[in-house]
């Protein structure tokens, strides 16, 4: 529960550590080019402290920023024999990042206005009537579409229990042994992970078909709860035990 809440806090209030930092800088009316790092680091830590729960997974970026601020602060406190040159200011990197981020925030606000305007306009979403029925809808495709299409096709093939073996470098038998071996060691296999570990596409495809063979031979149980979710594989015993 807390995880979801803190996630929402982050989403709705601050998009990330830079957003929070920018907020604090504006609140204190600080010149972004000359940030009093001690002040802002304290403010930042105060904010993190006020939040009752910080989920490290979710808020890692916020914590990382706190570490950076403390690091810069310590660097600035170090006694130096000679004053720092402009380019050596330990804040430089952060300032540059903030300046760029600030521009993006403004662009965001401007784009948001445009989005609002467009939301009130409605275009037609159906093809107009033509004397003859049209061809299927056509769309411009990107590389992602191309790759996604192929991999979804491969997934569909798998459901059809279709067997294609191409290339001589991968043997179905060896892959099947490999899968069984992995199952004996690990009990449960995350197939997507296994699939991703394959070095070549053909290796990956053969591993898919090996899995199919194993299912068909009733040697393993495989479960995929939803499309795109991983397939979990167990060895089939007399009485299969599901975790």
């Amino acid at each position: 529960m807390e995880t979801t809440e803190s996630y929402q806090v982050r989403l709705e209030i601050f998009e990330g550590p830079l957003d929070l930092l920018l907020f604090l800088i504006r609140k204190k009316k600080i010149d972004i080019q000359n940030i009093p790092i001690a002040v802002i680091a304290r403010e930042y830590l105060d904010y993190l402290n006020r939040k009752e729960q910080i989920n490290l997974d979710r808020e890692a970026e916020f914590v990382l920023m706190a570490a950076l601020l403390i690091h810069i602060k310590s660097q600035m406190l170090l006694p130096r024999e000679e004053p720092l040159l402009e380019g050596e200011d330990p804040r430089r990197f952060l300032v540059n990042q903030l300046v760029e981020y600030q521009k993006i925030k403004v662009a965001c606000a401007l784009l948001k206005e445009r989005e609002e305007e467009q939301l009130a306009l409605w275009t037609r979403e159906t093809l107009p009537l033509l004397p003859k029925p049209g061809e299927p809808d056509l769309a411009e495709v990107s590389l992602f579409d191309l790759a996604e299409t192929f991999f979804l096709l491969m997934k569909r093939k798998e459901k059809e229990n279709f067997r294609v073996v191409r290339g001589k470098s991968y043997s179905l038998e060896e892959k099947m042994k490999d899968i069984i071996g992995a199952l004996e060691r690990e009990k449960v296999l995350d197939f997507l992970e296994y699939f991703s570990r394959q070095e070549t596409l053909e290796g990956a495809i053969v591993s898919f078909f090996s899995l199919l063979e194993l299912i068909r031979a009733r040697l393993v149980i495989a479960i995929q709860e939803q499309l795109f979710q991983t397939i979990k594989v167990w060895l089939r015993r007399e009485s299969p035990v599901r975790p």
Partner: protein
Amino acid sequence: MAPGLKEVIEALVFVSLEPLSLEKIKETLTDHPPDEIEKNLRELIGDYQAPGRGISIIQSGGGYVFTTRREFDPWVRRFLKIDRKSKLTPASLETLSIIAYHQPITLSEISALRNVDSSYTVKTLLEKRLIKITGRKKSPGNPLIYRTTDRFLTTFGLNSLDELPTEEEIARILGEDKTDEEKESS
């Protein structure tokens, strides 16, 4: 006459996904008397019947719908031909993706992977110069083998075939949901 009623009806006929029935208009515009609605609809249709219009509203399939005028059909067809030349159908995309990842490949291998005779889509892709014939396979029947072209690479912004997204990359993008859910439920 209620001001703006005709315009509202025009907007509704326009966005409707199917021929818009009079009943549906009345259902939406409950604050207008039905006879006002009918009157304005008739006027709207009349407006589009005036000369000098390229589109009109016809009654079809139990409702009212916009259509291009019959006399402009030749231009519309010419346009659609040009417009669609540059795009791919889902079938072409599927075929192209198989050739991209499995090349060199024969027509029967493509058809086997798609479960569909793919000679027509292969022909279309050849015409679009996205694929080419690069020889014959040394197997019974010596079938032609296909590969993608340089034009294919430029179309998809690739420098070489090695740059095609890998299974890992696509899985990572498509699988992002999963890890998020896992994180949240943990």
